């Protein structure tokens, strides 16, 4: 028995226009939503993006394929190697070269580690927005553990351009496996601590359950992919639908939610971290030895003494670096399962060393397109929780 609706209607209170704007603690820096509020409830909202549009697709048309990789780092800068792997996989498929098994295993191990730390930051920031500050330190410190591994491996903490077309920047340092095993147990402990804090926490449950529900049909129509689509009950994961890099030979299952509300989106991510930990352990067990760069002359640089001693090695080295890898003319759309969803690259090459057009299919562009519609009728506190659970990364959103 709540207060009758008509009681409010004839009070004709004015709509309050508020900017949940670009520089707001919970708006991840560069997302702006202009809301019309009635009291606390959002009546209509209009979103504006483009505050971090850095012209990736225009700049990339003047770079060689290997020079594009540092630009792909800055797309989803929270899990940057996943973008590198996606881009190099697409170009390698166009070139028709097969990369060595060791390179595939290392790429998958690092991608799954990146998926874990992407979910860690998303959940840490979301829980800070909900006011649960201690979880930020529990989760974020585990990201620092993985940072040390990445520093040793690639030299950079965040924007580590680790893959090259046809291989990797360098091989694993020795002691890599133990560091990763230690990091995984650390992350599991942190996840359990955070779950112990939040799983039965009344405030957390009230603020996230039945909030901004996205139905299955809406999620598909909006073009959701990744954890947000699986939270709405659609079991679609690129690693299972069309598997690449031996994903079909290792067993991991895809967590799927039922209601598609913020609670489901959060716990799909928690469960996905456990699956990724399981995956990394299996891949680590079967890590083969051998070369990491494919021996295809069009792609891999000749080794040191070839480049210095005979003229063919020198010309080959010069040509690959100076004019870039020559990709035969054609086009391709290839996608991988990044942390936020299906990250696709539509590349058109004109036979020269620089790509003619690189179109990135950013997963969170289509997710954020639905944001003004799914937050209608909910309170301001709910729209902040929902924005956190959608995990919108501005670099990937605005490219």
């Amino acid at each position, binding site marked *: 028995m709540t*207060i009758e609706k008509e009681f409010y209607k004839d009070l004709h209170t*004015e709509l309050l226009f508020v*900017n949940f704007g670009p520089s*707001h603690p919970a708006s991840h820096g560069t997302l702006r939503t202009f809301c019309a509020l009635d*009291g606390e409830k959002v009546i209509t909202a209009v979103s504006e993006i483009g505050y971090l549009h850095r012209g990736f697709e225009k700049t990339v048309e003047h770079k060689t394929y290997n020079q594009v990789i540092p630009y792909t780092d800055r797309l989803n800068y929270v899990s940057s190697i996943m973008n590198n792997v996606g881009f190099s996989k697409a170009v390698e498929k166009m070139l028709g070269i097969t990369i060595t098994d060791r390179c595939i295993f290392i790429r998958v191990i690092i991608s799954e580690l990146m998926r874990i730390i992407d979910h860690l930051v998303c959940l840490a920031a979301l829980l800070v927005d909900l006011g649960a500050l201690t979880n930020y330190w529990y989760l974020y410190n585990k990201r620092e553990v993985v940072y040390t591994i990445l520093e040793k491996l690639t030299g950079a903490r965040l924007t580590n351009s680790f893959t090259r077309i046809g291989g990797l920047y360098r091989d694993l340092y020795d002691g890599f496996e133990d560091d990763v095993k230690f990091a995984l147990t650390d992350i599991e402990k942190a996840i359990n601590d955070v779950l112990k804090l939040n799983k039965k926490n009344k405030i957390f449950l009230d603020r996230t359950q039945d909030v901004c529900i996205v139905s299955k049909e809406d999620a598909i129509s909006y073009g959701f992919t990744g954890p947000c689509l699986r939270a709405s009950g659609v079991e679609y994961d690129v690693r299972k639908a069309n598997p690449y890099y031996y994903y079909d030979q290792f067993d991991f299952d895809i967590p799927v939610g039922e209601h598609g509300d913020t609670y489901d989106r959060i716990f799909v991510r928690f469960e996905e971290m456990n699956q990724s930990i399981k995956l990394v352990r299996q891949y680590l067990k079967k890590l083969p030895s051998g070369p990491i760069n494919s021996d295809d002359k069009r792609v891999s640089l000749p080794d040191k003494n070839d480049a210095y001693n005979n003229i063919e090695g020198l010309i080959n080295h010069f040509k690959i670096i100076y004019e870039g890898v020559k990709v035969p003319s054609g086009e391709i759309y290839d996608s991988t399962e990044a942390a936020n969803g299906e990250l696709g690259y539509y590349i058109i090459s004109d036979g020269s060393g620089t790509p003619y057009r690189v179109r990135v299919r950013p997963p969170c562009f289509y997710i954020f397109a639905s944001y003004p519609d799914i937050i209608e009728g909910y309170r301001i506190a709910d729209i902040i929780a929902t924005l956190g659970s959608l995990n919108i990364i501005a670099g990937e959103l605005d490219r």
Partner: protein
Amino acid sequence: MTENVTAALIVVFLAVIIPSVILFLSHFLGGRKYSERKLETYEVGLPKVYGSTSERFSIKFYLIAILFIIFDIETVFMYPWAVNFRELGIWSFLEMFLFIIILLAGFVYILRKGVLKEI
């Protein structure tokens, strides 16, 4: 009796003097430089702010404010009672119990009416 009064006076003295000294110092010492753009209202750096302060507010906020005042004053009455709870004996306990029961009835009415849910 007098040391209680002197203790109270010291507290009042501290409560009044220290904030005013701090406010005076920050007002007097802090530099002040006004520009036209600085005096505009802060709306995330966006040019236009919609609506004005004289607009009508939604009634729901008024309800929340009133409920807060009622239950806050109730706790304010409880403090002195709780402090010298022993000396006052059984009668004051029953009086305070009656006071709480009356307010509890109001609280149950609010829960049944679902005022807090509607916001």
